[in-house]
């Protein structure tokens, strides 16, 4: 893929299921960039969870409210912005703890933010942009992936 930044933008209704459209688009872009399949899967899960959070917590599944997803393809990184019209995440969110879930202190849910943070190289919440309140995620090609990508391109 040439060394230029390209942006792909999607608008999704806030209805469960449509997060898969963003997940597949992000996965396809990551594959094109040469990310290892395990990283593509990481990205797909993180994008899915960010979209679900926007649909549920920011838009209360109001299907007329759009979640905007921007894939910014760089030479060695992929940035995904997931924008909603909500107020943003609270300052402090309790981390999920399986022991607490088993003891009934926490519900079984609440893994979305944990997964996003765990699977992405860089995450920023509550970024304000013209698109709204943005969750920004970045994954970077590792050296080996870049080498493989380079050898594929030179072999064409």
């Amino acid at each position, binding site marked *: 893929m040439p060394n230029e930044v390209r942006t792909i933008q999607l608008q999704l209704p806030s209805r*469960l299921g449509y997060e898969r459209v963003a997940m597949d688009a992000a996965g396809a872009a990551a594959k094109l960039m040469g990310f290892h399949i*395990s990283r593509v*899967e990481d990205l797909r*899960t993180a994008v*899915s969870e960010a979209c679900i959070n926007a649909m549920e917590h920011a838009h209360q599944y109001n299907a007329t409210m759009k979640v905007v997803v921007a894939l910014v393809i760089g030479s060695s990184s992929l940035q995904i912005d997931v924008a909603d019209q909500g107020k943003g995440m609270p300052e402090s969110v309790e981390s999920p703890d*399986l022991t607490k*879930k*088993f003891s009934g202190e926490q519900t079984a849910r609440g893994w979305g933010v944990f*997964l996003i943070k765990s699977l992405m190289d860089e995450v920023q919440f509550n970024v304000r942009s013209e698109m709204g309140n943005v969750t920004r995620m970045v994954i970077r090609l590792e050296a080996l992936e870049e080498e493989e990508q380079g050898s594929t391109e030179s072999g064409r």
Partner: protein
Amino acid sequence: MEPRVKTKANVRIHGNVAIIDVDGDLTPEARETVELAYQRVTSSGVRKMIVKFKPDAYINSGGIAIIINIAIAGTKNGQTIRLVQPSEHFQKIFTMVGLRQYVEIFGSEPEALAGF
């Protein structure tokens, strides 16, 4: 967008082990189906249970919550639960969330049945 193909959860019995075949994605939409299958197994008195996934199933955080709820119920009901053939990616995620402390994960049904 309602999924066109809804997730099914069929129960098989193999000796003293109940196997729940989860045929489809594990998302909040599948909760009732999967929990009903679990309740059927529980009411039959079986104490050893395998929950088997399709390797290409999509599992999101809502699906993880379903598994956790079953694991919690299994602990309370004195059951042993094994998970079979989630993809490598979801095996990694189950490890990340700490689920392996409570359920064992196997790559295939024969492996899960061996010595169970």
